């Protein structure tokens, strides 16, 4: 029987209605007039109350009327049971304990008796009945009999029993866990704290129910913890927050607190289940670890910057001899040329060129190192302006090589650093101009496009191209292409470009067809 009346109000009401109707039936049995109407109403009520066995007892407790629902619930047909004592429905234990008499006495003395207990069906099976017996008296107050309304509540009883068992399981579980366990009402008020809570805090459960537990939260964390809990309760989400809770020993330990809502079939939160896990040791260990990492990082940074400083000092010291070799070789040519033959002059110019190359290499290495560590400020940059600046810088070379430069239509703004962007583009342009074959004039196309938050800048040339097996390596330090061994440069140019692109959070690459030309591209975030 799924239908269930709210117990306190309706049993009384139902009992009285039935008793009143029954009384009219009894009274009018003698009166006869319009009797059929009242009887018919009573019958209708009795028959339509699905799940309710409604019948009458005479003053001695014998069954006086019966109904289809009573038959369905108890298994007896009317002819089998009318005239029998209502003891028939009780268990032997109850009969022995005098329960039936007690129920009738209560009804007689107090007007009605409500009961709940195990009853026996005709086939011997038991069911749990809940019901009310109401005494029926005539106008003089003499007892005419009893009306009885009974209801099979076995399902509910079982559900209650299951709930009690699950409650017991929950308690056993929650009390066996190392965590502090608690539950709260849908509005966030705590209604249960596991003994671990009480033991850990040393404060009785009743003082901590509702929002009393907040008093045990570290004052520095209290506002944050309360806010997190309020938000969780309001948004019906899962709580995951860490705060310190004061223990009975006065120490404040870190706990990771998690809670989840328990919802009914319609999705309403009916309860919150929460745990507090002691993460104090973990927390302190990770804090210690964090501090250690920071300390080590600082040490590394310090040693790195001292290495860098050393590098600069070395570079400075290395550059001086290069400078002197170059200058004195030059001086020899200037002041003593008449005493030198062609071979000697050739040797001298070779000394000067080697020194110059050495100096260039040192500068490139320094540049490469500096790019790895220096702070790079990123900001929106107008690509068109950068392209123009670079073109001005290489204008002499463009003219000298009779190069033709063409431009795309689109110039997106990019996130970059102007100096590094100019460096990259200058390098692309210098390469495009340098690696032109001797038999044709350089044709260079500079274009850009943006798509999906990215912008790509391309420099396409009609130069000698790069062999397919080499193209993956051109951005590595000291890689010089076999075809380019006579070209100027240190082999660091594209490595510097790659490093610069990395510092711009971008990427570089090259596509090439040997003998036709190369396209170097730089991809950046669009601004």
């Amino acid at each position, binding site marked *: 029987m799924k239908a269930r009346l709210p117990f306190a109000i309706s049993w009384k009401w139902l009992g009285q209605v039935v008793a009143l109707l029954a009384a009219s039936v009894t009274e009018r049995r003698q009166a006869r007039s319009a009797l059929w109407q009242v009887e018919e109403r009573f019958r209708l009520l009795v028959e339509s109350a699905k799940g309710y066995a409604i019948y009458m007892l005479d003053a001695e407790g014998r069954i006086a009327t019966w109904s289809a629902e009573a038959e369905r619930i108890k298994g007896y047909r009317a002819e089998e049971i009318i005239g029998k004592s209502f003891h028939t429905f009780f268990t032997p234990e109850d009969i022995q304990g005098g329960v039936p008499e007690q129920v009738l006495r209560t009804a007689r003395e107090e007007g009605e008796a409500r009961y709940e207990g195990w009853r026996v069906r005709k086939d011997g099976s038991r069911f749990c009945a809940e019901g009310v017996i109401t005494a029926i008296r005539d106008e003089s107050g003499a007892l005419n009999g009893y009306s009885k309304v009974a209801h099979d509540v076995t399902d509910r009883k079982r559900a209650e029993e299951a709930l009690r068992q699950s409650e017991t399981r929950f308690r056993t579980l929650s009390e066996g866990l190392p965590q502090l366990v608690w539950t709260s009402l849908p509005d966030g008020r705590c209604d249960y704290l596991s003994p671990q809570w009480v033991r850990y805090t040393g404060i009785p459960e009743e003082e901590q129910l509702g929002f009393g537990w907040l008093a045990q939260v570290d004052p520095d964390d209290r506002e944050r913890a309360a806010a997190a809990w309020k938000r969780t309760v309001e948004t019906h989400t899962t709580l995951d927050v860490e705060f310190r809770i004061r223990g009975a020993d006065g120490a404040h330990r870190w706990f990771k607190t998690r809670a989840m809502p328990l919802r009914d079939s319609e999705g309403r939160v009916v309860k919150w289940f929460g745990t507090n896990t002691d993460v104090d040791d973990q927390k302190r260990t990770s804090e210690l670890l964090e501090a250690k990492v920071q300390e080590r990082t600082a040490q590394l940074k310090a040693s790195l910057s001292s290495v860098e400083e050393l590098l600069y000092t070395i570079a400075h010291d290395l550059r001086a001899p290069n*400078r*002197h070799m170059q200058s004195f070789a030059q001086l020899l040519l200037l002041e003593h040329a008449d005493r030198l033959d062609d071979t000697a002059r050739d040797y001298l110019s070779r000394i000067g060129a080697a020194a110059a190359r050495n100096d260039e290499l040192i500068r490139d290495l320094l540049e490469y190192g500096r790019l790895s560590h220096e702070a790079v400020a990123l900001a929106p940059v107008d690509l068109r302006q950068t392209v123009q600046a670079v073109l001005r810088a290489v204008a002499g070379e463009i003219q000298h090589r009779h190069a033709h430069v063409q431009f795309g239509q689109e110039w997106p703004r990019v996130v970059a650093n102007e*100096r590094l962007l100019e460096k990259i583009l200058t390098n692309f342009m210098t390469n495009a101009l340098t690696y032109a074959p001797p038999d044709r004039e350089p044709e260079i196309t500079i274009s850009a496009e943006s798509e999906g938050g990215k912008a790509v800048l391309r420099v396409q040339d009609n130069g000698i191209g790069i062999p397919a097996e080499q193209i993956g390596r051109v951005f590595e330090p000291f890689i010089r292409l076999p075809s380019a061994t006579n070209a100027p440069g240190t082999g660091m140019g594209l490595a510097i470009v790659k490093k610069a692109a990395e510092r711009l959070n971008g990427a570089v690459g090259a596509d090439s067809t040997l003998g036709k030309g190369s396209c170097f591209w730089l991809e950046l975030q669009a601004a």
Partner: protein
Amino acid sequence: MKTLLYVDDDPNDRLLVDIGCARAQVSFLLKTVESGVEAIRYLSGEGEFADRVEHPLPDLIFLDLKMPEMDGFQVLRWIRSHPATRVTPVAVYSASFIPEDIAKGYADGANYFITKPSDLTVLIDIFRAADKCLAADPGNDDPLAQFSALALEQSR
């Protein structure tokens, strides 16, 4: 006659500047000292430098940075904190092209930051420009400024 004081611990650079000035046929008197400490002794007129006829206070100072004992930055700060030299133009003349060095040089009171050239003809140009700066009527031009700009360009 104007005086240019050149401070550098490197004998090769001192020789090159000597030759450069000669080839540029400069009209200033080139005085050379070999360390930061000696520069300060010169500027404060200590010992043999007390003779201001032989060792006149300079009208322009070329100052190397990386020197043992007392580096160019220290000398520069000394120059700027002493009344006799407070307004004397100073050109830092260093192999350095590190932006930080350039910024520090200007912050400490340098008027120019010139990178030592590898090419002798550039060196000659630099001291010819210095000579122009020291001329009786330098005009509105600042011939040394272009070499400062070059250093800044190279540091990028």
